[in-house]
C-alpha cells in the first residue's frame, strides 16, 4: 500500500515538473524602467512599462558611410566595444563572435555592431582593413568610428560597458569584453563575456530564444 502511495506521489511531482518546463522561455529585459500611465482610445487608463532603449546614433562605418539606428530597424544585433590594435581581449571576442556570424550568415534578422574606442587611430579605412582581414566585411557586421564623447557615453550609459583611456595598459585603453544582445525594440536583453567560451555558448542559445520570441 505504501509503495502505491509513493508511486503516485512521484508521478504527481514529475507531472508538475514537466508542466513547469513547458511554456515559452523569454529573456529578461535589462536597464532602467519606469511605469507610465497611458489612455487608450476609449479613455481607459492603463499602466505601461517603459524600458531603457538604445538612443539614436550616427557614426561612420568601415565604408565611410554615415549609419544611424535605422540600419538596425527590425533586427536583433550584438554590440561590442573594441579597437583594432588591441592585443588582449579583442581578438578572442571577435574570434567567438565570428563563429556566431558564420552560424547566422543567411539570417537577415541578425546583425553585429562593433564600436571602436580608439578615436585617434581607428579611422574607417583602418576598420575596413580589420574587417576584411577578420573575414567579416559585409553589411551584416558594422564597424563604426565616432568621437570619443559619443562612443564612450553610449558604451557606459546605454550598453553598460566600461571603456576608458588607460596609460598603464600596454595598448593604451581598457574596456570590458561584453557582447551585448539588443532586441528589435532596441532593448538590452543580455550581456556575455566575449572571451569565455561558455558565456558565448549562452549567447548563442539566448540569440535563438530571442529570435523565436519575435521581439
Amino acid at each position, binding site marked *: 500500500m505504501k509503495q502505491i502511495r509513493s508511486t503516485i506521489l512521484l508521478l504527481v511531482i514529475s507531472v508538475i515538473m514537466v508542466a513547469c518546463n513547458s511554456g515559452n522561455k523569454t529573456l529578461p529585459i535589462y536597464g532602467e524602467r519606469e511605469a507610465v500611465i497611458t489612455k487608450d482610445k476609449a479613455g481607459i487608463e492603463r499602466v505601461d512599462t517603459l524600458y531603457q532603449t538604445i538612443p539614436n546614433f550616427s557614426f561612420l562605418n568601415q565604408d565611410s558611410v554615415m549609419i544611424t539606428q535605422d540600419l538596425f530597424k527590425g533586427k536583433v544585433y550584438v554590440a561590442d566595444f573594441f579597437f583594432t590594435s588591441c592585443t*588582449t*581581449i579583442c*581578438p578572442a571576442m571577435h574570434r567567438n563572435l565570428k563563429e556566431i556570424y558564420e552560424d547566422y550568415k543567411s539570417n537577415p534578422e541578425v546583425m553585429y555592431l562593433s564600436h571602436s574606442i580608439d578615436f585617434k587611430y581607428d579611422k574607417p579605412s583602418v576598420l575596413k582593413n*580589420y574587417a576584411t582581414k*577578420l*573575414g567579416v566585411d559585409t553589411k551584416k557586421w558594422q564597424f563604426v568610428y565616432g568621437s570619443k564623447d559619443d562612443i564612450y557615453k553610449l558604451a557606459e550609459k546605454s550598453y553598460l560597458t566600461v571603456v576608458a583611456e588607460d596609460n598603464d595598459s*600596454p595598448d593604451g585603453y581598457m574596456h570590458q569584453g561584453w557582447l551585448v544582445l539588443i532586441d528589435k525594440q532596441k532593448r538590452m536583453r543580455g550581456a556575455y563575456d566575449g572571451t569565455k567560451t561558455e558565456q558565448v555558448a549562452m549567447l548563442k542559445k539566448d540569440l535563438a530564444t530571442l529570435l523565436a520570441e519575435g521581439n
Partner: protein
Amino acid sequence: MRKYILFSIYLTTICSIIYSCQSSDEIEFAAYKSNGKDIYVKYCQNCHGANGEGLGELAPPLTDSVFLKENKQQLACFIKNGANQPMVVNGKTYHEKMPTFNQLENIDIAQVITYVTNTFGNNQGMYKQETVENDLKNCK
C-alpha cells in the same frame, strides 16, 4: 604458491620503478612544454587561437611546421621584439604587426617556443634557454 605471488609483486614493483624513471632530459622537456602552455594561453592564444589556428588574415596559424623550422632562429626575436615584416605562412601572406612581448624572460621564451614547436602538428623537440640568448643576439 605464496612464493609465486610474492615474486610477481616484487617483479611488478621493480618494473614500475624502472618505467617511472624517465631521464632528466625528458623531465625537463615535459616541464618546458607544460610551462610553455601556460605562457601560450596567457600571451599568445588571444590571437593565435587555442589550436594554433590563427585569426583570419590578422594573425597567422602556428601549424606551418616548415615555416617554424626554417625560421626557428628568428622565433625568439619575433616574440621579444615583435614582427613588422610580411610573413608567408601556409602559402598565405600576413601583413599585420605582431606586438612585442618584452616582459618575457629568456626562460619564458624558451618554454613557449618548446610548446609551440611541439604542438599543433609540430614536432621539433627541445629548445633551451641558452639557445634563446644566442638567437636574440642575431635578430635581423
